[in-house]
């Protein structure tokens, strides 16, 4: 498998002028790699992910998956959104079966596979529940199960845990590591949380806004499964943050109040590993 992003540029027309959201993005992603796209909000992470997904068209450049140019969305690139995007008119199990139903799989096969993946996300008990009966974390589990049933090599995730409380987020991050390990998928995971990126990624691609470019790349070579409290991880995290002081500030500004200032409130100089987490 190979996933290549080649010279992707994206501009939107606003009332009077063009907005350049992405500028000449080039990427090469290896099979089974876990990539995190990290950057402040508005830097074009979602746009890039949507272009790879085939939901948005690039102004210039192309995305090539297994030697085929991506033209539209398809089940070879499963996508998970920040909001679960589950269908409220269907029960959990029917939601999980949706992709397989579209693909025309027979009923028994669909059910069996759906239950397998529901089991993987520990929600078999809720198979007959309606979507509104689930918590935010449970919804994302169902969305993950639904994405996994597509058997795609590529899994695209757009801040899937950003709206969850920190405990739920932590649990899901751990489970995602495990599921990725078991399913060997190629994952592109968008986040604005540095901690999350370092915890999950093989490679962290840091994006910068105006226009969106990939500014820096970090290889995270830590043993898995990773734990946030692991001392090696905290060192790497501190390293990444030191390198990225400027971007960290942008990320933080997007998260904290406007009067926040990296020098004044500098937690960095105390090298407190918690900076940049949004706990």
């Amino acid at each position, binding site marked *: 498998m190979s996933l290549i992003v080649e010279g992707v540029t994206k501009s939107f027309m606003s009332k009077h002028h063009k907005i350049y959201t992405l500028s000449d993005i080039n990427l090469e992603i290896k099979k089974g790699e876990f990539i995190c796209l990290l950057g402040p909000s508005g830097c074009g992470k979602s746009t890039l992910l949507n272009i790879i*997904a*085939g*939901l948005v068209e690039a102004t210039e450049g192309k995305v090539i998956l297994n030697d085929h140019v991506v033209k*539209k*969305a*398809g*089940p070879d*690139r*499963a*996508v998970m*959104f920040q*909001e679960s*995007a589950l*269908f*409220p*008119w*269907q029960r959990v199990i029917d939601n999980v079966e*949706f*992709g397989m*139903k*579209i*693909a025309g799989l027979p009923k028994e096969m669909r059910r069996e596979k759906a239950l397998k993946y529901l089991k993987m996300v520990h929600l078999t008990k809720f198979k007959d529940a*309606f*979507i*509104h*009966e689930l918590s935010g974390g449970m919804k994302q589990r169902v969305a993950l199960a*639904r994405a996994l049933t*597509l058997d795609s090599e590529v899994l695209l995730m757009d801040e899937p845990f950003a709206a969850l409380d920190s405990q739920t987020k932590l649990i899901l991050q751990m489970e995602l590591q495990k599921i990725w390990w078991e399913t060997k998928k190629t994952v592109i995971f968008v986040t604005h949380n540095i901690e999350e990126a370092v915890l999950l990624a093989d490679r962290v691609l840091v994006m910068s806004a105006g226009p969106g470019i990939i500014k820096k790349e970090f290889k995270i070579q830590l043993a898995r499964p990773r734990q946030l409290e692991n001392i090696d991880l905290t060192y790497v995290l501190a390293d990444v943050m030191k390198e990225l002081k400027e971007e960290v500030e942008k990320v933080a500004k997007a998260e904290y109040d406007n009067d926040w200032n990296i020098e004044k409130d500098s937690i960095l100089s105390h090298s407190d590993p918690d900076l940049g987490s949004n706990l």
Partner: protein
Amino acid sequence: MKKIAFYLILILIWEVIYKLGVEVLGIWKVYTFPSPIAVGKTLIKLIADHTLGIAIAASMKRIIVGYLFSAMIGITIGLIIVRFKYLDENFGALILGLQSLPSICWLPFAILWFGLNESAIIFVITIGSTFAIAMAIESGIKNVNPLYIRAAKTMGASGLKIYWNVIIPASLPNIITGLKQGWSFAWRALMAGEMLSATKGLGQVLMVGRDLADISQVMAVMVVMLVLGLTVDNLIFGRIEKSIRHKWGLDRS
């Protein structure tokens, strides 16, 4: 139980008003204000001589035919309008206007085209509810959360499959509301049509009551209309709406 008690009290108040207004104070003449007892008696008489049964059957047949037509045409128009942006921009406002036009205004046309018969009334019913249904379909589909469509696309759905598996079920709550509103428009059109064109039916029985200065017959028919309207509303649309709201979790509040 509570409901029965409520209606008994309502009837009691009616009787009191009748006694005061007609017998004691003489505000109304006996033939302009019916008593609940007289209405009850008339109702029994109308049922016994089959007048009511025949009238209800005739009216229901008309409204069902007319309503089915309007549902089919309304849904088709709605779907076509959504599909073609040009039509939407230009015909959207026109349909909104047509929807607010009382359907009885179409009766002259209907009579010219079909003569004073069954078809004329069915035409008025159909045209009375078609546009409400078309509007509901259009706005229902337009308001589908685009995220659902994007998600479906990433799972391999496209074209008709998206329509059938996502857009239609996602807009169903709005569509049902529109169909329900269409039904109430159809019901009004039916009564207006029947009262003016004097063929068999509930509206005609009501007009006969007026012609005979039999106010309790007028009232009896009105009661029947009320009960029929409420029954269809609750038993059919009410149930469907409730089950959808339950599924979607819209009934928690």
